């Protein structure tokens, strides 16, 4: 089988990599680009752990053939903050106790970020809609919703 060249913007950097056309984006991110912040839970679109932002929209990277990322802009959890400078969402998740085991957190935060990027002041229903595709087995969601709300307030400035 022939490898194909995938070029895209990943966390602000022009990225080129040779991929097998049947690779899924999540595997390229994790196994080849070593961005293991993006998690793979179910591998079939049911848990949202693999959520990344592609051209502004939250998507399940386990369902996206890597070649679909061609020419797009992709953001992963690694691209939105750093240990010294957390993104307001990351801060709020910690402050509100919205993280327990943490496995859902990167996907949850990327879903939340896609929401806040397009809707800076979401209401409760919009927050629920945005994270309905992200399963958390630990927190019970209430704290996550609070964290997203408080991050939106911080971002208001």
């Amino acid at each position: 089988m022939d490898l194909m060249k995938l070029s895209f913007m990943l966390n602000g950097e022009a990225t080129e990599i040779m991929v097998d056309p049947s690779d899924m984006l999540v595997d390229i991110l994790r196994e080849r680009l070593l961005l293991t912040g993006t998690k793979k839970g179910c591998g079939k679109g049911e848990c949202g752990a693999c959520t990344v932002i592609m051209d502004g929209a939250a998507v399940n990277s386990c369902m996206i053939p890597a070649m679909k990322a061609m020419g797009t802009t992709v953001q992963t959890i690694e691209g939105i903050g750093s240990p010294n400078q957390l993104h307001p969402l990351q801060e709020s998740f910690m402050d509100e106790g919205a993280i327990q085991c943490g496995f859902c957190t990167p996907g949850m935060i990327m879903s939340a970020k896609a929401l806040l990027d397009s809707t800076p002041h979401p209401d409760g229903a919009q927050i629920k809609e945005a994270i309905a595709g992200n399963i958390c087995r630990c927190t019970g969601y209430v704290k996550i919703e609070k964290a997203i709300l408080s991050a939106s307030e911080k971002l208001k400035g």
Partner: protein
Amino acid sequence: MFQAYYMPQTVQEAMDILSGHKGQAAIIAGGTDLVLDIHEGKKNFSAFVDISRIPNLRSIEEEDGFLRLGAAVTHAQANRSALVQAAAPILAEACGKVGSLQIRNVATLVGNVVNAQPAADAAVALAALSAKAVIDDGTTCREVLVEDLYAEVGMCKVNPTKEIVTSLLVPVQKKRQGSAFVRLDQRKALALPMLNVAAVVQLDESGERFEWARIIMAPVGPGPVRGFEGENLLAGAAASRETIVQAAKAAVKHANPRSSALRGSREYRLGVLPVLVKRALEAAVIHAQKD
């Protein structure tokens, strides 16, 4: 697994790639169903032709009396579109029920139809609205009602290795028309429907009588199922509670649900279906009378 991935810029280019692969290549758009089927070994193709980048397939446009939704239009796009919300509100609503936002952001309406799952929410709304699919086989384009595209469960009459559904044509809602979409599900998110019903009604000048009604029920057959007997009872009848209850009962005669661990038993679903049809019809009448 597949060996090649093409991203054509025009429908013609896509058709050429398809015919060059002689049945081994398939069209992919959002891919949310197809990728799963490939991973589970249910389908096998050597190449994919991704039509989601073809510019004129990504738009929603109004053309006299119709909305034209391109084959790359996603559920999220249709759900948020002011045009769809105004001209075909149940379609916008149904599109918001599919999967999760991550799925709606990539899964297309045409994919929802051609994948031919009997309970596909968007397809149920499209069937109720008398929407047509425009199918291009490289030489001619034909228009087929969405409800007539189903061969059997999971089998669409469109051949993905030879033909492309380029768009959907959805009639714009007219005066004194109303519609409603009702869904029974186990949870409010990421749940397949146990039952869904869509109804579209046209009232007469007085607003008190039906001119016609369309009732679609799913998943109670190989594709979205029409409740012809109920529709016949309603044609020309008074828009009263009694006729609606009668019609709902009659419509359900066409339903043939199977017992399923996921969707509930046949008995339960046959028991609640008339109630859902009644609710859909009542809501559609209220909607039509507001107009």
